């Protein structure tokens, strides 16, 4: 059994959905920054100033939700994205990364691919509304960055989302 005992197992003890601290995601992706942390954190502005990222995030809305295992944009989502597209075309100095997410009901790899499908659906919609594709990037966090942590539909519904995260063109190379 000595041979057997020397088997090694790689562990991911870090940063995965493994810890019990409800604040494990640093307060979630609320406000201006997305889960990626490379977004519009620190971009100033007031929600009443239509040219500010705050206006984009709060008044227009930076995120849309999806049905279980779906990547089709809802009518409500289209309204938000129409506003996002208009804002992005008016404020040409900004770029955006669209982050797709999934709820925890699914396997890790599939959820990454599903989140990507959702982010891409948003990108295609924004491009169809006139936003240059060159100013948009997409990524997926799968089920790794839930904003609501509970095991029922109330939370799952909030986690099945795509978030449009702004950044200055000048900042992003």
């Amino acid at each position, binding site marked *: 059994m000595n*041979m*057997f*005992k*020397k*088997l*090694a*197992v*790689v*562990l*991911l*003890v*870090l*940063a*995965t*959905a*493994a*810890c*019990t601290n*409800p604040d494990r995601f640093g307060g979630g992706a609320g406000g201006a920054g997305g889960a*990626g*942390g*490379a977004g519009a954190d620190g971009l100033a502005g007031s929600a009443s100033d239509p040219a500010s990222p705050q206006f984009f995030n709060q008044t227009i809305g930076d995120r849309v939700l999806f049905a279980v295992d779906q*990547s089709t944009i809802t009518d409500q989502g289209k309204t938000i994205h129409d506003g996002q597209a208009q804002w992005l075309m008016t404020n040409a100095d900004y770029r955006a*990364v669209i982050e797709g997410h999934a709820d*925890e*009901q*699914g*396997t*890790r*790899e*599939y959820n*990454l*691919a*599903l989140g*990507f*499908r959702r*982010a*891409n*659906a948003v990108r*295609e919609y924004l491009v169809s509304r006139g936003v240059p594709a060159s100013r948009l*990037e*997409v*990524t*997926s*966090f799968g089920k*790794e*960055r839930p904003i609501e*942590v*509970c*095991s029922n539909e109330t939370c799952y519904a909030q986690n099945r989302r795509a978030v449009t995260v702004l950044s200055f063109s000048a900042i992003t190379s």
Partner: protein
Amino acid sequence: MDYDGANVQFLTDSSSIVLAPRFSPNGDRVLYTSFESGFPRINVLNVANVGRQQLTTAQGEMAFSPRFSRDGRSVIYSLSNGGNTDIYRTEFGSGQHVRLTSAPSIETAPSLSPDGSQIVFESDRSGTQQLYIMSANGGEARRISFGEGRYGTPVWSPRGDLVAFTKQNAGRFHIGVMRTDGSEERLLTSSFLDEGPTWSPNGRVIMFSRETQGAGGTSAMYSVDISGRNLKAVPIQGGASDPSWGPLQP
């Protein structure tokens, strides 16, 4: 760490999300998915000196779900472009890339047969996640999972006779095994969330992640014999997920 949970060694720090580590056949390297850049990419980590390097994959917006080939000379993985995810192979030596699937659906979680000739993977081309087998060079795939529910994360057994998988059905998750033609499906576990099986080198034990329900949910690693008996938690301090069982050490 050892298979009994002892001697844990940290290979990465917590500066970004890292996912799904996979040992090379001789245990010298580990592949994993990193979010360091904000976009999922595959890294190769040298176990001896903990040096890491990003794998230059085929052109894509996201790369994830990597596994070494049986000779350790290439990597099979998923690559995403324009909303679509397919399976690719990249050779370490030549840097050459080969696209192995080209369906508009999600193709991911590839795992090679022990002789390296075939790949089992998951795809939602039928409308839900199911398991398929194709040649290691791509081409036509045949579906092997036909039971109720969804099947994902297939892993070919070291002996070549079985495929371990994660199954979702009626709100529960299971770790199971089936023969490579899809027959003799057996579910070994059942819980709120079990996923990501890995085989012991002798093919008799499967280790996997189990997550508990609720806001205080935790993730831990469990092992179970392929008979379905002897289910037990692997004692590790702190949460853990996504185990990858390395080769026997000399």
